[in-house]
Every structure is written in C-alpha cells, then in structure tokens.
C-alpha cells in the first residue's frame, strides 16, 4: 500500500497535536514541517521529521509531499491553502475553513481547480460518543429529534493552567477580530454547527445572542437558536469564559432522550492511556480524523467533512452573526 507523505504547516497548539498523531498513523509519514519558531522545528526534528522549514512555501516545493496538514491561524488559511492546492498537495485544513464566506469560496475553488482533496478538521465527527449518537438518530431509537441542546464551554484560547511550569501566552492574533473572523461562535460554534448539520441536515434559520464578559471586540460566548431542515430545533451555547470544560449534546426525541458528551478524563487515567495506548481518550478523535484523511487520499476518495461542509458551517455562522437577538 502507498505511504502518504505529509507536510505539517504550523506548529502552534493544534499543529503540535497533529504532528504527534501524524507520527503514529498508518500508511503515512511526516516528511516535513514548517513554522516560524525554530524551537518548534527543532522539537519536530527530534521527533523524527527530516525536513523543517521556516517558510511553508519551501515545504510546498518538496515534490515528495502528497498532502499537507494546515494548522495556521485563521487569517492565514486562505493564502496557505491556495498555495498548497496550486502545488497539487491534498489538504487537511483546521476549522474554521476561513475568516469569511468569500475566503472559503476561494479556497474551495482553488482546490477544485487543482483537483486536490480538501478536508476540514472537525474531530467531533470522529469521536465514538458522537458517532454513536448519529447511529441512534439514524436507526430510529430516539424517534424524531424535536429539540437539541448543545454546549461547548471551555477556556477557549485562554488555556494557561495554573499548574503549568511555563506559562502559555495567548497568541496575539486571538485578540484581533480581523484575524479570527469572530470569537467563540466561529471558534467553538463551528464544531457544534458542523456536528448538528451532520445529524439533522442543513440549517434553515439561525439567530444569536452574543456575550462580551471580557470586554473584547469579539464575543466570548454565544447562544444560538437554530432550526434544521428535518424540523429539529436547537439551542447552542458556546463560550470561552469557563475554566470548566463541557462539550455535550442532548437530544430530546419523540421516543427517548439521549446525551453524548466528550469530557477530559482525569490526569491519572490520561497518563495511563497515553502510556499504554500511545494516545489518550481525549485526543483519540484527532488521531482518527488524520487516519481517515490519509485513507481517503490513498483511495482517491472525497473526504468528509469536506471543504463544502466548512463553507456551509461558515454560512450558518455568518447568518447567526447577522441575525443577532438583543435582550435587555
């Protein structure tokens, strides 16, 4: 079987997660990485990556690379994904696909024009619990899903932990709406919207109520009301305001109610799982999505979530930003 040669662009938080898992997936090898940080590149070298670049354009010139994993800040998605497509590399692009619909369309168009596969990183679709919920919905055991509550509440980009030896600064771009395309709604909401679209079909209408607890020019929380083409109504809550972590979907169906959630396991279990399996339960979906992407590239099949999915998610988010509810 063919081995897919991967290039990883961006070694920030998510890039490092992808590198760690890419080194473990079957039928793939990491040929090169690119990042501005020499420290991150040195670590990648130590992990076994032969070629490292401070400029990703150099990485894209490498003829042996079949596909790239892009984990750059959102404002760099358009440029990097376009260049990767033009270099005929298949693309795994972190969510959200881009800052806005126009950029997303341009990425899609360039990928299509150059006949490369484009997958958007939505690990929830590879999470066993959320996959089981999909099966439950499909096989009718829940009946018709009338109402759904979905919540993704976390620290967002403000993830420094008091226990950590070296404090983790928040990259500057996270504070700039022009660079992110929005706040918690685009960051965490894209995960939930993508998941619920997978369950219930397209969104027919959506409204939002945004929160600004931290006085930034981007929202740190959002409550959305959405209606799907199958008739299901959803309340979606996302937020960056809590040191607690909650990622949960409750479905209230005509036959029964059901819940799926993704929770971090306790530190002892995490260490145990990492030592015994190489990957903790928490990160298993990240591993699975990369393995899936590589398999799709090998078999020359379109991946899902696709670039079109990324665009539809962004269209729903744009609509939610436009249709804001104001409560006094």
């Amino acid at each position, binding site marked *: 079987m063919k081995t897919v040669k991967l290039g990883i662009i961006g070694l920030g938080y998510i890039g*490092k997660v992808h590198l*760690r898992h890419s080194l473990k997936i079957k039928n793939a090898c990491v040929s090169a990485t690119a990042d501005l940080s020499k420290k991150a590149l040195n670590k990648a070298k130590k992990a076994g990556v032969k070629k490292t670049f401070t400029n990703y354009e150099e990485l894209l010139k490498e003829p042996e690379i079949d596909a790239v994993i892009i984990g750059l800040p959102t404002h760099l998605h358009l440029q990097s994904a376009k260049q990767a497509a033009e270099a005929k590399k298949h693309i795994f692009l972190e969510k959200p696909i881009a800052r806005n619909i126009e950029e997303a369309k341009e990425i899609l168009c360039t990928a299509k024009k150059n006949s490369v596969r484009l997958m958007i990183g939505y690990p929830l679709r590879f999470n066993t619990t959320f996959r089981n919920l999909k099966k439950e919905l499909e096989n009718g055991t829940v009946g018709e899903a009338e109402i759904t509550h979905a919540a993704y509440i976390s620290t967002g980009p*403000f993830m*420094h*932990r*008091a*226990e*950590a*030896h*070296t*404090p*983790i*600064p*928040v990259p500057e771009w996270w*504070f700039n709406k022009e660079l992110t395309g929005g706040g918690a709604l685009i960051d965490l909401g894209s995960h939930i919207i993508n998941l619920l679209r997978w369950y219930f079909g397209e969104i027919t209408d959506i409204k939002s109520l945004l929160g600004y*607890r*931290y*006085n*930034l020019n981007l929202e740190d929380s959002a409550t959305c009301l959405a209606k799907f083409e199958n008739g299901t109504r959803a309340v979606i809550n996302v937020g960056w305001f809590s*040191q607690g972590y909650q990622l949960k979907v409750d479905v209230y169906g005509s036959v029964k109610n059901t819940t799926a959630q993704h929770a971090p396991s306790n*530190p002892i279990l*995490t*260490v145990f*799982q*990492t*030592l015994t399996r190489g990957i*903790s339960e*928490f*990160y298993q979906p990240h591993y699975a999505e990369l393995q899936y992407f590589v398999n799709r590239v090998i078999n020359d099949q379109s991946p899902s979530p696709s670039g079109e999915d990324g665009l539809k998610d962004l269209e729903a988010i744009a609509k939610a930003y436009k249709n804001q509810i104001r409560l006094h």
Partner: protein
Amino acid sequence: MKGYPLSLVSFVQIKNSNLAEAIETSLDLINYDFSKDIKNIVIKPNLCYYWDYSTGQTTDPKFTAALINLIRTHTSPDLNISIVESDASAMQCKYAFKMLGYEKLAENHNVNLINLSEDPYETVNVTAGKCSFKIMVPKTIQEADLKINAPKIKYTMEPIKLTCALKNIFGCNPYPKKYRYHSRLEEAIVAINKAMKFDLHIIDGNIVSGIQPRKLGLIMASQDPVAIDVAAAEIAGINPKTIKYLKLASKEDLGNTTYIPKGESISQFKKGYPRKTIKNKLMNKTYTLLIRAGLGKRLGLE
C-alpha cells in the same frame, strides 16, 4: 523587628456585600489614617493571566473601586490614582486591564492604568539572602506618596506555596519574563519588596482561590506585608514556618512573622477556606513533577 513596632492585622467579614464598609472597618482596626498631604497613589491589584475575579485569582475591580472611593472620601477627590500591573510571561497588561474590568473602572473612576513594563525605570542593586539583584523600579512607583497593595490569597507552586502580599509586589517587576527568576524566586520576591516598599496591604478575600474558588467574604489589612502573609498562610492551611521567603523577608526587615489580630476571629475564615486535602496535595505534586519533567504535553496533561 525595625520599622514595624506594631504588626496589626485586621480580619473583617463583609456584610450585605458592602465592600466599602468592610474596607473602612479593616483600616480602622489597624488604626490607619490616610494623610491629607498625599498627591499620588499607586494601587497594585493582583491581575493574574486573564482569569477574572470570580475565579478568586484576581482582585475584583469592585473591591478596587470601593477602595478608590474610600481614599478620595478621606483625602481629596482630585488625587492622582494609578492602578499598576506589569506584563508577565503569559499575560499582557493591555488585555488584562480590558478583560478583567479595569479599563471600565478607570473610565468610571478617573484613575490611570499603568503598565509598569512600559514605564520609565531606575535600576537599583538589592541583595536578599545570598543573592544580588538589579531591580528595575518604575517611575510611577518611585513617585507615589502612598503605595497600596491589594493582593489575593492563593496557593502557588512549590516551594513558594502562597501568593499574597509579598508575592503580589513581585508583579511590580517590569521585566515581563518573570519565570527567569524562578530558580531563585524566594530571594527575588524579597529583593523586589525591598526595592519597592508598599505602605498598606489590603487583601481582597471576598472570593478566595484554594483548591477551588469560594466566597469567603473576608477583608484583611495591615501595614506589615510579612505579618499579613503569615495570617493569610494560616487561613490557607499552610504552616507559615514552611514558607522560606517569609522568614527571609523578616530577616531582611520587611516585617514581623508574628502579629496582633484585630477584628473577627481568624478561625471562621480558616474553616471556610477551600484547603488542600492530602489527595489534592499528592495529585498536585505528581502533576507538577510530570509537567516539570516536560511530560505534560506528551501525556496529554497540558
């Protein structure tokens, strides 16, 4: 100990959410009066990362606002008041002021927000224990007639154990990469306190951060940073004798390790503080060791 003949520490329970009244009572109990000659005041809250006051990690802007109103009532409404903080390894003041509600406070109360990392400074040589330091003393702090420290009571990593009055002044060090001091942090805390001596220490113990945040409703005040830290350590269930920098600070004439309690009994606050259990301590040590060994990310802990 020289300079602090009476190390009074007051303990006041906040009643009916009236912060101003509790702060005033805490100052009355230690016989503190604001001088009428004061022109420039510096207030140093504890702004830690971007965690807001509800976590117990940072000084509540409502507490700082009540303190500002009280100072102006007792002195002059035209006083120049500056709230100071410095950039840290993972925190930028410009965002912390905004996110933690201090930008709004400054607008509403006509006070200055000073990022000490951008303030002009003078370098002074200070020794603490066997270590020598070159400490940058910001101009705003040098020029203040009255310097008020408004810390929190928090656990922190070994061997420091406690973050309160003395450790909060460590945050006046304008050098952002503060983790560079961590190999001799105890001495650095003392040295910075020697270089920038604060006159008054008022603890915002309304919400405290132990193993979890809890509403304790406590205000403490003292002119002695060592004494107030000793009392805070007792509340947090840490034997103050095991905190080396308190011993060093006392040796370096920053304050007394004994104090005269005033106001309410300390026992009710000791009882209410969310203290570490043996399980917490073991977990925390294991966690810290794994992270320090560089295994945090690899093991999925960070």
